[in-house]
C-alpha cells in the first residue's frame, strides 16, 4: 500500500546495496531526482536494468556504483555515445562493468512477462542477430502448434523499480500520461516500487476510465518531486531539455569534469534543485 513520504526516506526504506534495480521511463518521465537520491545515499554493487541506460545510468556507472548493467540501447539518444558507459566497458573505469545486452523487443517482452508473473517471454526475435550468441539469457522454444522457433528471454522482476509520473492522489494511486513506455510493467513486475510525481492531487478529476493508473496498493512509496524528471520531461508539465542532453556529451567526456559535475549537482544537492524545472502546462 502506497505511503506518501519524503524522497530521502522512500529511497532509504526501499533500496539496498546489491539490489537489482530498474529505473524506467522511455525518454519521457525518467526519474532523475530519485536517481540522484540513490547516488547520494551511496548504494553500491547494483545491478541496473533499463532499456535505454541514458544519462541517468551513465551517472551511476561513472560513480562506480554498478556491478552489472542489463540494457538494450546504451546511447545518448540523438546525441551520440554514452561516454561513462564506454569508459567502463572499454577501460573498466572506475571499475569493470558486467553487461547483459538485449534488443528493445526482448526487454519490452521481458518486462511484460515480469508484470504477468510468467518466468519467460516468447517473441519472434533475434533472427540472424549475433546478440543471441553472446548472451546466454537468449534461448528459444518451439511453438507446439506450428513448430516455429521463437526467441525466449527471462522475465524481468526487479527488487526495486523507480518511475516518475505526473500525478498521484491521496490514496497513492498514480496516473501516467503520454509516452508510457514500460512504466506499468516495471512496477507490477518489481518486489518494491517507488513513484515520484509532479503533483499530489485530491482526485484525478474527469479522466478517461482507461487512463493509465497504477492503484496505490501496487506501490510502496509515492513522493512529490516537482521537476523530478528533468532533463527528461513530464508531458503536460515541462519539455525535454534537449540542450542539456547535448551538453552531457561534454560533461561526461572527461573523467574529472564528470566527477566535479556530479559532486556539485548531485552529491551536494537535494531534490529541491529540481523544483525550478517544474512548470505546469508548459511544454
Amino acid at each position, binding site marked *: 500500500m502506497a505511503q506518501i513520504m519524503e524522497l530521502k526516506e522512500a529511497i532509504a526504506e526501499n533500496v539496498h546495496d546489491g539490489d537489482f534495480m530498474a529505473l524506467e521511463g522511455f525518454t519521457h518521465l525518467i526519474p532523475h531526482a530519485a536517481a540522484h537520491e540513490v547516488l547520494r545515499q551511496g548504494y553500491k554493487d547494483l545491478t541496473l536494468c533499463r532499456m535505454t541506460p541514458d544519462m541517468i545510468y551513465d551517472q551511476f556507472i561513472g560513480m562506480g556504483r554498478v556491478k552489472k548493467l542489463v540494457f538494450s540501447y546504451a546511447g545518448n539518444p540523438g546525441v551520440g555515445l554514452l561516454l561513462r558507459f564506454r569508459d567502463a566497458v572499454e577501460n573498466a573505469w572506475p571499475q569493470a562493468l558486467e553487461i547483459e545486452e538485449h534488443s528493445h523487443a526482448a526487454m519490452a517482452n521481458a518486462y511484460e512477462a515480469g508484470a504477468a508473473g510468467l518466468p519467460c517471454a516468447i517473441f519472434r526475435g533475434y533472427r540472424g542477430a549475433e*546478440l543471441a550468441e553472446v548472451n546466454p539469457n537468449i534461448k528459444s522454444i518451439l511453438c507446439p502448434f506450428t513448430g516455429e522457433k521463437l526467441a525466449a528471454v527471462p522475465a524481468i522482476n526487479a527488487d526495486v523499480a523507480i518511475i516518475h509520473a505526473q500525478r498521484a492522489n491521496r490514496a497513492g494511486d498514480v496516473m501516467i500520461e503520454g*509516452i508510457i513506455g514500460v512504466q506499468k510493467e516495471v512496477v507490477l513486475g518489481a518486489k518494491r516500487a517507488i513513484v515520484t510525481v509532479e503533483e499530489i492531487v485530491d482526485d484525478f478529476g474527469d479522466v478517461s476510465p482507461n487512463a493509465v493508473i497504477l492503484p496505490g496498493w501496487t506501490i510502496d512509496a509515492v513522493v512529490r518531486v516537482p521537476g523530478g524528471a528533468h532533463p527528461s520531461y513530464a508531458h503536460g508539465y515541462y519539455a525535454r531539455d534537449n540542450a542539456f542532453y547535448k551538453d552531457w556529451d561534454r560533461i561526461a567526456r572527461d573523467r574529472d569534469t564528470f566527477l566535479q559535475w556530479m559532486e556539485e549537482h548531485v552529491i551536494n544537492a537535494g531534490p529541491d534543485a529540481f523544483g525550478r524545472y517544474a512548470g505546469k502546462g508548459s511544454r
Partner: protein
Amino acid sequence: MSEPTLSEIMTVTAARALKNTDVCFVGIGLPSEACNLARLTHAPDITLIYESGTIGTKPRVLPLSIGDGELCETATTTVSVPEMFRYWLQGGRITVGFLSAAQLDRFGNINTTVIGDYHNPKVRLPGGGGAPEIATSCGEIFITLKHSSRAFVDKLDFFTSIGHGDGPGHRARLGITTKGPTRLVTDLCVMQPNPDTCEFEVTSLHPGVSRQQVTEATGWPLKFANQVTETAAPSDVELDALRALKQRTAEAHEGA
C-alpha cells in the same frame, strides 16, 4: 535558392522512396529526417511510428530523441512500449523500417554494437535497440547513412541486425518472410540489392558524383548495376521543405 548539398540530396532521395500509403517505423537521425520530409512533401498521409509508442505522429520539428514530447502530442495515439513491439512491429503491420548504421556490409547487414571484439571492444557503440526485430518484422527495410570506407566495410565487427545475411536464401533459412533491405541511400548514390546475389550495387549516382568517388568511399569491392542513372536533383519544393524543417528544428532545440 542555393544549390543542394550532397547531404540534402541524400535526404530528399531517401524521402522519395516512401509512399503516401506506407506505415513506416522510423529510426532517429537521418531516417527521421527523410521520413518527415516525405510527410511534408509528397506523402502527407504516411503513417510514421517511433518505437517510443507514438503512432501516426506529425512533428513540426525533428525530435532529438526517439521520444520527444512533440511526437506524442501530434500522434494519433500513443501505446506502451511492449504493445509497440508486440502488436505493431511483430504484428506485421509495418510496411517500411527505416534504419541507419555505424557499419554496413555489402548484404545490408548492420553493426551498431561494437568496433572490435564484443567482449573487449575498441569502441563500444550504443547497441541494437529496436533494430534486430525491425530488420526482420517490417515488410522491407530502407537504409540511409553517409558514405565512408569506415562505415561501408568488407566485414562487420558485429552482426547487430540482419540484412541479406550471407546472400540469397539466408533470410528464408532463418524463417524470416520479409524482404529485408531493398534500398540504400547515401550522400553519394543510391544502391539496391542485385536480384541474383543480394549484394548492394549502385543504381544511381547523385549529380556530380563519380564512380571512383563512390568506390573509394566503400570498403568492399563495389559493383555497379548494368544501368546506372543519375539521381534526379531535389526540386525547389523539396529543398525548401527540408531547409525549413531543419531551421525550425535548430531553433526549437536551442530554445529548449
